[in-house]
């Protein structure tokens, strides 16, 4: 039986999947442009703006659904999480743009690349793909992978920062610091996203919140 809310739910999932694809593309472009030195700023900006516009669409749509249909249970959790997840998507787009700005500001920093940076960016790309897929399939098992990746990115972030403070190559150090910061933020949002997906499927709230709060305060 088609319920009144079903067409709107389909529209929501369509928009979200479009956003997901754009997020993967923009992050990949941004990271590659940093590592290889290509300038993709305009492309990524366009993507980021498009993602942002879709975020507002999702906000409108979710509030519309809440107003009209007063959804409960699975529908409710899905709609509530979509707000959080689409916000995470919009941040990803924004950070992707920020990364291209670094490349733009600092010029070609491809020689500053080092092994841990490459590892981190690989993890980020993997994480983003896992996050988008996890939401599309409402698969909470991928959340474990996302959390692992985020831990790694955090570790690198904490290891490298002190070293960058000591570094003599200011340009590379600053560029890397900025990049690591953006990657770390992307990681955090990816984990929030996995929490939201977890909420949709299991009904449990914010399992990672405390963990993230705790390890940003202490040395791990």
């Amino acid at each position, binding site marked *: *039986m088609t*319920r*009144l*809310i079903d067409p709107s739910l389909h529209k929501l999932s369509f928009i979200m999947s479009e956003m997901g694809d754009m997020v993967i593309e923009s992050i990949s472009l941004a990271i590659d442009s940093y590592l290889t030195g290509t300038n993709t700023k305009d492309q990524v900006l366009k993507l980021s703006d498009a993602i942002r516009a879709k975020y507002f669409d999702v906000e409108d749509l979710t509030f519309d659904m809440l107003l009209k249909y*007063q*959804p*409960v*249970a*699975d*529908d*409710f*959790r899905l709609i509530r999480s979509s707000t959080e997840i689409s916000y995470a998507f919009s941040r990803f787009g924004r950070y992707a743009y920020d990364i291209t700005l670094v490349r733009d500001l600092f010029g070609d920093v491809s020689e500053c690349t080092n092994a841990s940076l490459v590892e981190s960016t690989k993890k980020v790309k993997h994480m983003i793909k896992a996050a988008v897929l996890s939401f599309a399939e409402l698969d909470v098992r991928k959340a474990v992978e996302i959390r692992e990746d985020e831990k790694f990115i955090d570790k690198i972030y904490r290891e490298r920062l002190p070293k960058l403070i000591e570094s003599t190559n200011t340009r590379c150090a600053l560029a890397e610091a900025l990049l690591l910061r953006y990657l770390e933020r992307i990681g955090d949002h990816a984990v929030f996203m996995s929490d939201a997906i977890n909420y949709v499927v*299991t*009904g449990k709230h914010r399992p990672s919140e405390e963990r993230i709060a705790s390890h940003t305060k202490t040395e791990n």
Partner: protein
Amino acid sequence: MTAMTTKSTIMESSPITTPEYRSPIDASKYKMIAENVTVSYGGIDAVKNVTMKFKEKSVTALIGPSGCGKTTFLRCLNRMHDMTKNAKVTGKVMIDDIDLYSKEIDPIYHRRKVGMVFQKPNPFPTMSIYDNVTAGLRLNGVRDKKILDEIVEDSLKMAYLWDEVKNDLKKSAIELSGGQQQRLCIARALAIQPEVLLMDEPASALDPIATQKIEETIIELKNDYTIIIVTHNMQQAIRVSDYTGFMYLGDLIEFSETKKLFTDPKDELTAKYVQGHFG
């Protein structure tokens, strides 16, 4: 507050509300417990072995598709099925540790602890507003006019009807609008100083504004009474109740805090029903 002092004067002086009739208040205790209640009509089970506990001063909503047995179950809680032929009720319904269905007690005396409001407003047609509210009292022997006046004012205030009718209590009850009639029925049920209030889809026959007023009334009454409400309107259940029970074909499928049941129902059937896949 005049309403509260009126209630205490009533408790002390009225014959039907002597101190041993009003049990001491214990907020964490269960006010009413229905245990293994089964209702069958001519061999067919309308309510199958249902057990529910109702916390004191809470609102519990019973939801479920038509014919699931929620109204039948509600009517067990004040022994209304005594009036129905062919109805067989087994199990226990305990109010404050007294089983309503035990052979030793007088059902009429204990029925006064449980007030009931029906789906279609049914004020007594030949009586005035005043007489309707006091019907349960006068016809049970309470005669002191001063006390009756106090109770009328108290009950009508609690039902949010006092301001609208205080100038003409002698008006006939059926001249009121539907929403007012229903609030009058609530006042009438409250006048006998019950401890539990049963409501069978109290707003289903009313327009949206009247429904809103009834819901406001229920939320206010929650402070003093244990309320059990049958409703087919899920948003209403979400708005007014603390606990919700979902019944289907005579079985109690799920019972939990309202927020939990509507955001994260444990049972597949519950999830399907509340999201509108059937019913």
